[in-house]
């Protein structure tokens, strides 16, 4: 497994400035991930 996630490019700032109109929210992550055991109401 990767232990040092070096992003391919890091002009993150310029990307974010150019897409400033996009909703900022906490970050611009397009993927959120969770264990399927991670919601309540199922045993």
């Amino acid at each position, binding site marked *: 497994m990767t232990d040092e996630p070096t992003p391919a490019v890091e002009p993150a700032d310029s990307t974010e400035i150019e897409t400033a109109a996009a909703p900022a929210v906490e970050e611009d992550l397009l993927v959120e991930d969770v264990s399927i055991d991670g919601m309540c109401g*199922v045993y």
Partner: protein
Amino acid sequence: MRLVDQFERGLDAPICLTWELTYACNLACAHCLSSSGRRDPRELSTVEAKAVVDELERMQVFYVNIGGGEPTVRPDFWELVDYATAHKVGVKFSTNGVKITPVVAERLAASDYVDVQISLDGATAAVNDAVRGTGSYATALRAMENLHAAGMRGFKISVVCTRHNVDQLDAFAALADRFGAQLRLTRLRPSGRGADVWDELHLLPGQQRQLYDWLVEHGEGVLTGDSFFHLAAYGSALPGLNLCGAGRVVCLIDPIGDVYACPFAIHENFLAGNVRSPGGFAGVWRNSELFGSLREPQSAGACGSCGAYDACRGGCMAAKFFTGLPLDGPDPECVVGHGATALSTVDRLGAPRPSGDHSHAGGVRGGPVPVTIGRRRPQPHACDESPLAGIGAGG
């Protein structure tokens, strides 16, 4: 939009769901959330169950948590498991281990799409059997040994945390390591027979803190089914969505096809419909009034002014309901103490009772006969003698 926000509004299909296949059970655990023991003669037939699987496949429900009662006592259990996995619905089933023989263990070890969860509520026979009945610890350990010997890795050991086993968390972790299993700790809710023993078994405030601290320190790799999101008010949230999924992304299908918001809320107030109705399960999931209202933004109510609300979201709907507390107020185990205050003035005896009662008459095997004055009075029934009464031999 965060994943949590999207989920709170509900999805067109559940992500996964609990499916209780039967109310029959060879055990009589004191805290059973489904008040199981005796088979309900109105159980879905094999054909009806397969029709439910067909619907789940069409809706792309990713997997089902099969439980009960003891699901493996149904003679068609393996037929249904195989049917589900052949139709792209993953299966995890919860069992007390009674039928996990070496042959069964080999079969499970060989399957990628079937997972198994062994229930255990004590790291020692003394603690476990007090709740689950004489011999139940031995049955569970034998199942674990068989699974381990067959090469099955990562099966779950699922523990309901109680006042009497909270000091055994390290021992549970050691058991999981010993058998190559993954530990799962879940919350005791006052649901089913749990309502009758909740006062004696639920964690005391100091113990909730003890559990939280243990999870923070040792809980990497320990599953919780997100059942402790009410503890998020202590500090940082535990891993998970910290979201009540009931009626939004998960639900329960019970042995007679009734659809409830959650397996901990088997009561007509949380009954959304029945899979035997013309629209089937999909119709219930998408159109029921109950689920529609759960998918609306929920009011913080009395908790609105509490700084912890953002973290705890008011806790568990089922815990509040079955202790007689209002749903728009504190959880009975609110870590700030608001729940205890509320409990001290609410009419506990007037609290709602679970809808059905499929309990055996005798209570926990090997345990004291429960006092049931004014409460449950099960009608004599063939299924009281054997959960398989009326079904052919075998199974």
